[in-house]
């Protein structure tokens, strides 16, 4: 990889971090040799977390397979914004069939590749959270259970954004969507519902399950690379903030994703063979309020009639995640504070 020498300027943000990294770990967008699964010119919204996540995931998959991948896409934002007729952003073979069948279509692609003796060509299927946890769930569970050789990536923006922001089984409690409006005694999405798909995936005993966010793209890339080293059903669940649906600023996507992780609301981990094998620790724990208050979908919890009780319930969810996955390293924390 060719990189240009850079001078170090302290600008007080994480942005400088890239330049402090060794050559191999740097992200260099202008590199002519980089893989390019999704071309520019697609129609994603400004600050779209899904476009970013998909691009990094598939570029990493391309690198890991020497460009030998086929992508299957469920209906959804990614499908719509990447193929505005008569154009396509995809630089890899790409197939979109339906909303709920991407895992099964990918199974068929993988089976055909086996029959055709194309052992080096790998299959990645992708869907939003609706196509994964709701309408595609039956096909996904079947693909997992058969341990078909497919990496399935869920880009989770916690709702049906393509149809105008409706609730999915991945929509978190209290969040406002068009079908969980901010009315009645329990405004927003109600507590006690929803599916934790990474854990459901682990319960299928598939070889690899991981979560990631677009706040740490190198972590996402590494997980895709790891997934491509393994054969069988693999699942990657990527949190991708949606400025439109979440009511967050377009330039805050990565920040919002980072707060989701740093608050403990979105645990980032890896599991192999049914067991959690590594956890991305929270670096600087923040209260969930920091994460919630910058998204308009939670605006009803703050402002004139604040709902500290609801915020507390969400904090309890974060605390449960922290305890479940050991997200906070007590020793490291105290060490950092001592420094």
């Amino acid at each position, binding site marked *: 990889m060719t990189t240009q020498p850079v001078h170090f300027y302290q600008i007080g943000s994480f942005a400088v971090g890239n330049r402090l990294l060794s050559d191999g770990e740097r992200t260099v967008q202008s590199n002519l040799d980089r893989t390019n699964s999704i071309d520019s010119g697609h129609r994603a919204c400004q600050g779209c977390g899904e476009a970013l996540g998909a691009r990094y995931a598939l570029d990493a998959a391309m690198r890991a397979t020497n460009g030998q991948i086929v992508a299957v*896409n469920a209906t959804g934002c990614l499908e719509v914004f990447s193929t505005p007729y008569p154009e396509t952003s995809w630089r890899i*073979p790409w197939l*979109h*069939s*339906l909303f709920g069948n991407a895992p099964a*279509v990918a*199974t068929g692609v993988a*089976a*055909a590749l086996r029959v055709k003796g194309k052992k080096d060509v790998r299959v990645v299927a992708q869907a939003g959270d609706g196509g994964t946890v709701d309408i595609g769930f039956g096909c996904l569970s*079947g693909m997992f259970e058969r341990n078909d050789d497919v990496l399935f990536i869920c880009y989770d923006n916690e709702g049906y954004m393509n149809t105008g922001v409706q609730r999915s089984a991945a929509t978190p409690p209290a969040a406002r969507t068009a079908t969980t409006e901010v009315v009645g005694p329990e405004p927003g999405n109600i507590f006690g519902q929803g599916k934790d798909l990474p854990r459901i995936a682990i319960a299928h005993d598939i070889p690899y399950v991981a979560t990631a966010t677009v706040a740490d793209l190198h972590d996402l890339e590494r997980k895709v690379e790891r997934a491509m080293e393994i054969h069988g059903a693999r699942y990657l669940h990527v949190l991708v903030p949606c400025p439109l649906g979440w009511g967050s600023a377009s330039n805050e996507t990565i920040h919002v994703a980072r707060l989701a992780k740093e608050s403990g609301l979105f645990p980032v981990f890896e599991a192999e063979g049914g067991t959690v094998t590594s956890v991305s620790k929270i670096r600087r724990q923040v209260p969930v309020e920091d994460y919630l208050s910058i998204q308009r979908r939670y605006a009803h919890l703050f402002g004139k009639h604040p709902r500290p009780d609801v915020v507390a319930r969400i904090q309890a969810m974060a605390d449960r995640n922290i305890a479940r996955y050991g997200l906070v390293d007590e020793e490291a924390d105290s060490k950092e504070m001592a420094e």
Partner: protein
Amino acid sequence: MLRQIEGSRAVAETVALCRPEVVCAYPISPQTHIIEAVGVMVKAGELAPCEFINVESEFAAMSVAIGASATGARAYTATSSQGLLFMMEAVHNAAGLGLPIVMTLANRAIGAPINIWNDHSDAMAVRDAGWIQLFAESNQEAADLHVQAFRLAEELSVPVMVCMDGFILTHAVEGVDILDQSFVDSFLPPYEPRQVLDTNDPVSIGAMVGPEAFEEVKYLAHLRQLDALVRIPAIAKEFADATGRDSGGLVRSYRTEDADILIVALGSVLGTIKDAVDIRREAGERVGVVGITSFRPFPAEAVREALCQARQVVVVEKAFSIGFGGVLSTDVAMAMQGVETNLRTVVAGLGGRSITRRSLEELIETAGRDELETLTFLDLDHGAVERERARMGETRRSGPSAENLLRDRGTAATAPVKEQA
């Protein structure tokens, strides 16, 4: 080789001769024997290279076939009834994408009330999906049609559904001449896809198409079906020349010369109708049969030609559009535009009710007397229906009609059903 075997077995062995590469299976009666038999052959390695995938639903079955076909593999599955409806979205999608999947549809009624027996409601429910739909009259034709189906599908990049009557054909043991591998190999060249997911030449398949081109895409699909109207008889002729068997084609006429009355039907009931026609012919009645093999594309011209001389056309169909009447007869009526004819619709054999030769003979007699109503339900128990209507009139909570009708017939669920075939 001519063998006395079950229809499902004959189809499975013929599908195997077509060298399918990906076969997806989900059980539903009465299709199961076909997919079981193919599964055994795949598992024993007889069809290698071939993948047999046990999926979790019919929706997944068709979806796996879509993925496999788009990757250049010859894909096959089979289903019936509720299974077809459960995969409906993918059925349309496969046709929309132009993927030459072949599927056997072991025709079965659609519930509620749940019913596993034969009629054509399932095939009719997907007639507009863009698939070619061929109906088999016998197990020999069902087997033969599969070879022609793969050839046709792959030539035109259109999926083909081979419809065979559930149980009546799938479970009947009769003589079927199973083709040789060498013949099938010469008749059916390896699949050369028009579009394929290939890392050396990446394409996007299944992109969103807006109003600016959607109609053109659909019209192209229509043209391909019109091409099929030419290719279906051509392929059938080539098949007949090589095998000596008259399988497939668009329509087939039987004793239609000088006929006053022509009966039109799809599928295995044609056999019983022919027997009835022979008897009525002996009695001096001028009656004949026109069997439609290709329901989609609908061979309007061939149908008109076959029927135009008849004084009366009687469409006997195992399905109907509730609230209107015949489905096939509507198509026949369109085909007969401009030709003066009396068209009669006879709905028969719903949910596996036997269509007996005797009832058909009576039907022909009634038609001969010009007494057949526009829409007739063959062997319908009007009394039972009237009694249920009366019960519904008497009390608001009259209960589920299906149960009431069973009780009325004295064959409520607890008692053994007397005659089921």
